């Protein structure tokens, strides 16, 4: 889960606990990390006993992202980093070329990089080639709540990258969309706005958690293949030879 946009830190805590989220992302770029002056807020998150995943939100260049990641490693004593390199300010669309470059640098420095990317297969493959074990494609634009806009490409990612951990990051607006991502075989989802901006974040968080469980169970149980026509579970005794009529 993300840690931004909640009405208060208390509501955020309740939501994270209700969801049972294991990873919580924290943006530090704007909090003057040089002086560790966001520390009270970060302490609140640390107290939740979740793994903190610092992110490089707001970085626009490879250099900024790398520097922010290095600062995050010192501040949070973790080599995990959610790597964002933003290419467009309005949509927050990732700059995938810079992303691959930054990932390469950070992995060589010993980081465990979780990159925020698009649904593009080739970019995902390059990130994996650079050493990323996790790839986080978007469902749709950050904060848009539009769900899985290109479901087909996400399905392809899952099929072509069977060994990578895949997390849908960004764009989920409804619990059903989280279930959908999990049904596609994704390993996790990352949610922020949909929960933080709802009227009741803890309840929405719980709804997302349930949806994730349901979607995952559905994936594991094996989804039936859709058919083109109605196929009754019981023989339609009352209408013999109905095929003949069509």
């Amino acid at each position, binding site marked *: 889960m993300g840690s931004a946009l909640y*009405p*208060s*830190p*208390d*509501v955020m*805590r309740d939501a994270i606990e209700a969801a049972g989220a294991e990873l919580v992302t924290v943006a530090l770029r*704007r*909090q*003057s990390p040089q*002086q560790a*002056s*966001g*520390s*009270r*807020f970060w302490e*609140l998150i640390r107290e939740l006993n979740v793994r903190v995943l610092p992110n490089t939100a*707001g970085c626009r260049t490879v250099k900024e992202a790398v520097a922010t990641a290095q600062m995050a490693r010192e501040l949070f004593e973790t080599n995990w980093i959610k790597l964002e390199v933003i290419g467009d300010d309005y949509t927050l669309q990732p700059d995938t070329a810079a992303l691959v470059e930054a990932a390469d640098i950070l992995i060589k420095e010993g980081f465990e990089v979780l990159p925020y990317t698009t649904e593009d297969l080739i970019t995902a493959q390059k990130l994996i080639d650079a050493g990323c074990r996790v790839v986080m494609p978007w469902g749709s634009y950050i*904060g848009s709540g539009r769900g899985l806009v290109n479901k087909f490409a996400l399905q392809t990612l899952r099929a072509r990258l069977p060994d990578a951990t895949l997390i849908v990051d960004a764009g989920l607006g409804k619990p059903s969309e989280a279930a959908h991502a999990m049904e596609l075989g994704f390993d996790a989802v990352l949610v922020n706005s949909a929960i933080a*901006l709802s*009227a009741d974040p803890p309840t929405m968080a719980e709804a997302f958690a349930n949806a994730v469980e349901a979607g995952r169970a559905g994936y594991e149980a094996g989804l039936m293949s859709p058919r083109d026509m109605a196929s009754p579970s019981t023989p339609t005794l009352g209408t013999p030879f109905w095929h003949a009529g069509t």
Partner: protein
Amino acid sequence: MSSTAGIVGAGVLGRMMAVELNARGWAVSLYDRDTEKGEDSCSWTGAGMIAPYCELEAAEQIVTELGVYSKDKWPGWLERLAEPVFYKSLGSLVVAHPNDRDELLRLRRRVLENAPRPDIMEDVGIDRIRELEPELAERFRSGLYFPFEEHLDNRDLMRALGETIRRKDIEWNCGTEVTAVESNAVVIGDTRHTFDWVLDCRGLGAQPDLPHLRGVRGELLYLHAPEVNLSRPVRLMHPRYSIYIVPRAGHVYVVGATAIESDNRGPITVRSALELLSAAYTVHTGFAEATLIESSVNCRPGFPDNLPRILPDQGLIRINGLYRHGFLIAPALVDIVCEFIDEGSTHPLAEGIMDAWQL
């Protein structure tokens, strides 16, 4: 013999407490490390919006209740002061660019869910916007108008409160670093000044005694814009860069504010300035020719639930966590505290902010 109060912290709350307790016949001493002007105080940086209904978007119901109560108290307060304060009762207007209409709808939905009465918000189209703020009608074709909201010049208010205090029989110790705030005592160096009640109004200065308190950095800009004619606060809703523009006398506009989880009080960053200015420019192109006369930065004191707290103890009462709502709720907090220490009674609005917190 009259009761005695030692008030620590001369932001808007400390100053109002001093004036009110003095009026109730108390012997009041006010302490602050700041100057009389109070530039280090959060109250100096605030925008002075009295907008309890807009705040329904993010704030808890209790803040709205305190705000609605306070709203009615402000005119009386301003009459009591030694100097006039820029204060307007013209409502506030909320707009969004066509791409961001969803943000407006989200605010509308949230307010409707919690609105105490239906007439506090009005859907406005281009004609009504032209009536309210003629210069915005070309740019914005729809918005929300909150008719029962006010705004005041917070710096005027600080000055007028200061002048009032100086004319009254109140001992005001500026530039005084308080060593400790204790039950019945304000400690300065080796000296203990004793009082019937000590009121801790220090905001973030009380952090050593209130470890849950955190700073939320806010940055704002003062623009002098002769080409811009806005008469009421205008909020621009945006997925990331929501701002407000609050008019002051003489074509001065306060544009704010960022909200960053940080207790850094350093100068405004270029990024924040760009965000505030770009957003302001999209509201009114006249801001392009404005002069940037000042940037102001401070950190709002907030508890983890962003709600205010009144924490009574033996001979000591701490009032803190006003967060972004200082001017919105100060009159209510003054009444709650004064009824408690002066009359020994519990104000109906005390529930939820005076009891919920256990030290």
